[in-house]
């Protein structure tokens, strides 16, 4: 366990950036998001949710999966072998860290997505524990401890004037060694303070919902009239899916000029009309009702059914805050069987 005074963070970041491309939350206009560290740009360690979740580092919004030449002979070049430069993410919150393990279930299951695996392998996550939930936080619903981040390589806890850093993996330990010069040994007092912060973090939730037994309940809710009401407000934008740390659907598109081109994988969203639109014109999900249902059923029923009961939601609250029409998963959990307390 090591620590560093918050006033010396610049030094820490300088050292970290020597170890790999360092990304941390930075404010740009009104938006806080992970950005490449720059000497004179301050990090924002207060805002809990970054605009985009860190999934973009493993599963970028757009990535080339293969390049090709098709002049005389067709030549295909695997682009995934280029993925995975050494990257350090600083300030990943526990919910977003937990989301990565859900994402792993998709991309690290057979057949393994090579680009994803390489990025995952070459990225060090320095999680930052939360001190106090925001009004839309409901990570506890999914048994995520806001003071801990088991999937991270390092966990940093803000004890007020200092960050106390604990290694949680081999990668983390190696990095701590490299940072020896800027970090101090933590004391037993720090350990107590960390515990206090962690315990404190779990209190004060305004939003309490339970998903206990929800997946099972939803088995029979496909034809529920609830969906007929719910979807009407949806404007079919992709905000909820793109901002969701667990949404992972993609599309493959061609970009070609002359005799060469590339096939790119880009985020897609089940909210969009053309997501399931087939070439002949048939669409198995013809209206927004089916699309909205798909999204929530996927998160709360299909995903748990496919992956040992785990829900595809970590309660980060991004969709709750950002949905233009306030149509969010909290509402669905409550209406379909979970309970929402608090507000």
């Amino acid at each position: 366990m090591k620590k560093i005074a918050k006033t010396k963070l610049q030094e820490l970041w300088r050292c970290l950036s020597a170890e790999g491309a360092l990304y941390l939350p930075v404010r740009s206009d009104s938006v806080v998001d992970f950005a490449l560290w720059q000497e004179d740009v301050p990090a924002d360690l207060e805002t809990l949710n970054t605009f985009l979740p860190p999934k973009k580092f493993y599963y970028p919004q757009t990535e080339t999966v293969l390049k090709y030449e098709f002049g005389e002979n067709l030549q295909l070049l695997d682009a995934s072998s280029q993925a995975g430069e050494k990257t350090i993410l600083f300030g990943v919150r526990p919910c977003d860290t937990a989301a990565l393990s859900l994402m792993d279930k998709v991309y690290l299951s057979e057949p393994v997505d090579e680009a994803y695996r390489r990025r995952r392998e070459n990225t060090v996550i320095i999680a930052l524990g939360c001190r106090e939930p925001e009004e839309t936080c409901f990570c506890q619903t999914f048994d995520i401890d806001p003071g801990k981040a088991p999937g991270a390589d390092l966990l940093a806890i803000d004890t007020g004037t200092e960050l106390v850093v604990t290694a949680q993996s081999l990668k983390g330990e190696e990095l701590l060694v490299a940072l020896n010069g800027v970090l101090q040994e933590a004391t037993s007092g720090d350990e107590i303070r960390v515990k206090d912060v962690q315990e404190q973090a779990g209190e004060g939730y305004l939003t309490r919902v339970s998903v206990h037994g929800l997946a099972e309940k939803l088995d029979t809710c496909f034809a529920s009239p609830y969906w007929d009401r719910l979807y009407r407000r949806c404007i079919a934008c992709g905000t909820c899916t793109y901002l969701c740390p667990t949404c992972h659907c993609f599309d493959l598109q061609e970009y070609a000029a002359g005799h060469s081109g590339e096939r790119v994988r880009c985020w897609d969203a089940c909210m969009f009309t053309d997501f399931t639109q087939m070439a002949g014109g048939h669409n198995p999900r013809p209206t927004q009702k089916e699309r909205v249902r798909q999204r929530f059923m996927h998160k709360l029923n299909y995903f748990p059914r496919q992956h040992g009961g785990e829900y595809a939601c970590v309660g980060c609250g991004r969709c709750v805050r950002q949905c233009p029409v306030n149509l969010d998963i909290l509402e669905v959990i409550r209406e379909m069987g979970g309970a929402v307390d608090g507000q």
Partner: protein
Amino acid sequence: MPVTREGFEPLIVAFCCNWCSYAGADLAGTSRQPYPSNVRVIRVPCSGRVNPSFIIRAFQRGADGVLVAGCHPGDCHYHSGNYHARRRFTILKQLLEYLGIEPERFQVRWISGSEGAKFSAVMNELTENVRKLGQNRKLRDAR
């Protein structure tokens, strides 16, 4: 001031209406009025046929400058196409400039079928101005 780059030949895409400006470009040829070879013309029936999307797409794919050329106001073969074009490109041009695209890169001119010399002059001028600016990077696709 941007510095002129050695060896940089700007790519200029010109949308020319069939009845005036394309004929003007032909006349520039007939009367051997030279202009840079990186000027390339796309024939459209009328300047009113030019969709702003075509212009943006040209920039995306690497054009350093784009020209829309049509008949002089009042001379449109289709009576009013260039009047509509004038309105559309008036606001498109202001918008591009507002977004930080150098005004020299997107031009609209009226060139009649008898103005071969003007066609060459406009192309020479446009190329020179864009050459000074350097490559279009702002609207160009990364891939």
